[in-house]
């Protein structure tokens, strides 16, 4: 149903366009004045100023270290498996490869690559990780000059990821093992 909107006919004063012109001058000068002399700018100068992103922001996934500076990843390859765009590629150490840098951890990845061009920031790797070794962090401006730049390797991921505490499974295992040894056996 069409609705007829009643329009008030303009008065002679309004027909002269003068009130509109004065109104325009007033508004534009006020805004220009506020921007120029009172610094009321609504925009941000991006690379220098940045938004504080929300606490649970899902940015780029990075590998993290624990409180004692150990790599948490044990190369279980669950994240590689779950990754929808197949952005993660893990090279396991193999049988004769390098062992983990801490006791009671099985292994650590020989190489861990995330292709940031493929990553969709879904957070499944973080969700699936049994070791809490990979977290979506707050980085959102992932840039590079070529495709090779955008594939982040293990060192880069670890250095960007920083330290995140939380569970230390290997430590628990160590304590358990010690407790086992010290268990008073009654013969």
């Amino acid at each position: 149903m069409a609705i007829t909107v009643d329009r008030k006919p303009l008065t002679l004063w309004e027909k002269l366009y003068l009130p509109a012109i004065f109104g325009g001058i007033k508004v534009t000068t006020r805004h220009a004045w506020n921007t120029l002399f009172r610094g009321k700018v609504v925009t941000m100068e991006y690379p220098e100023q940045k938004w504080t992103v929300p606490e649970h922001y899902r940015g780029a996934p990075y590998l993290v270290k624990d409180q004692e500076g150990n790599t948490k990843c044990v190369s279980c390859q669950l994240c590689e498996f779950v990754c929808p765009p197949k952005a993660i590629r893990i090279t396991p150490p193999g049988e004769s490869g390098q062992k983990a840098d801490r006791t009671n951890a099985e292994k650590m990845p020989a190489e861990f690559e995330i292709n940031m061009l493929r990553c969709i920031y879904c957070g499944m790797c973080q969700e699936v990780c049994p070791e809490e070794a990979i977290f979506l962090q707050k980085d959102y401006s992932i840039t590079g000059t070529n495709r090779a730049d955008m594939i982040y390797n293990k060192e880069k991921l670890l250095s960007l990821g920083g330290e995140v505490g939380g569970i230390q499974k290997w430590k628990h295992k160590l304590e358990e093992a010690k407790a086992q040894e010290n268990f008073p056996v009654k013969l």
Partner: protein
Amino acid sequence: MDWNFIIFSLVKLAIIVGVVQGLVAYSVLAERKISAWIQDRVGPNRCAPPFAKYIPILGPLLTRWGMFQPLADGLKFMFKEDFTPAGVKKIYFFLAPAVAVIPAMLTVAVIPFGSVMGSQKMVLADLNVGILYTFGIVSMGVYGIVLAGYAANSKYPFFGGIRSSAQMISYEISMGMSVIPVLLIVGNLNLSKIISWQADNGWLVMYAPIAFIIFMVSSFAETNRTPFDLPEAETELVGGYHTEYSSMKFALFFLAEYSNMVSSSAMMVTLFFGGWTLPFWGLDHPATSLAMGLAHIGVFMLKMLFFMVVFIWVRWMFPRFRYDQLMDLGWRTFLPLALVNILITALWLWMRS
């Protein structure tokens, strides 16, 4: 034909063209900056050549003000692909930008931008029919736009061209009519004479304020600026008459628009605001020294820049007129008003004499 005249004319020509082009480039920057301030933004403040950061204080400051932006804009236009769409009418397509730019540049020739420097008059061509020449040339400007709209062989540019031809023809009449009171008062068509009359008797805007208002509004319409920018109404016509153009050809249309702005401002200053004269500090008679000649040019430039800013400012102040409102304003308001204005001025002059 003596060599002195030729050489000085060429020098003046080179300077005028250079200054107008420079003004065009920097008025684009001014447009961007002023629009930014009005819209609570900062405006271009990043563009800088690599050496700028080695200049202490001045380099970062100029960068902050966006002073290098016009260079980048120009370069961008140069390096863009000059694409000719299939189905355009080739000859007209190539001709249109030139036809748009040439009249825009020619108008500046008769404007006296200063008094004298040495023995040289600071005007390229001191025509006895300066105003008539200007109107003749300005009315040629419409051909560029119409040709562009027609040659593109596409509906939106065509609409733009049609709109602009109707608009420019309508407003040319009220523009021409609005100047007649000025001519009646001064009794001369020579722009230099008009300026010297104003130096003696005060600025013409005080004698013919209605004429000035009609002239200003009409020149907004003539230069296709908001609120009369229907030929390039982005929201309705994609881009207007230059939709199909790219690269330098597009830049030429831009150049034409802004040169029209420059020449319109110069005309307003010359006709209504005393040209290069100022009523105080003894700047109201032809210069006797070189410094005073320069001061006159400076005064003229300042007045002109003021009107350029008004042109830009108005763009961010008013919404676009509807097409019928535009025609209504031109034909049913300004034309009768201008006619009555002529009559009243003539009567007033007759009563006084």
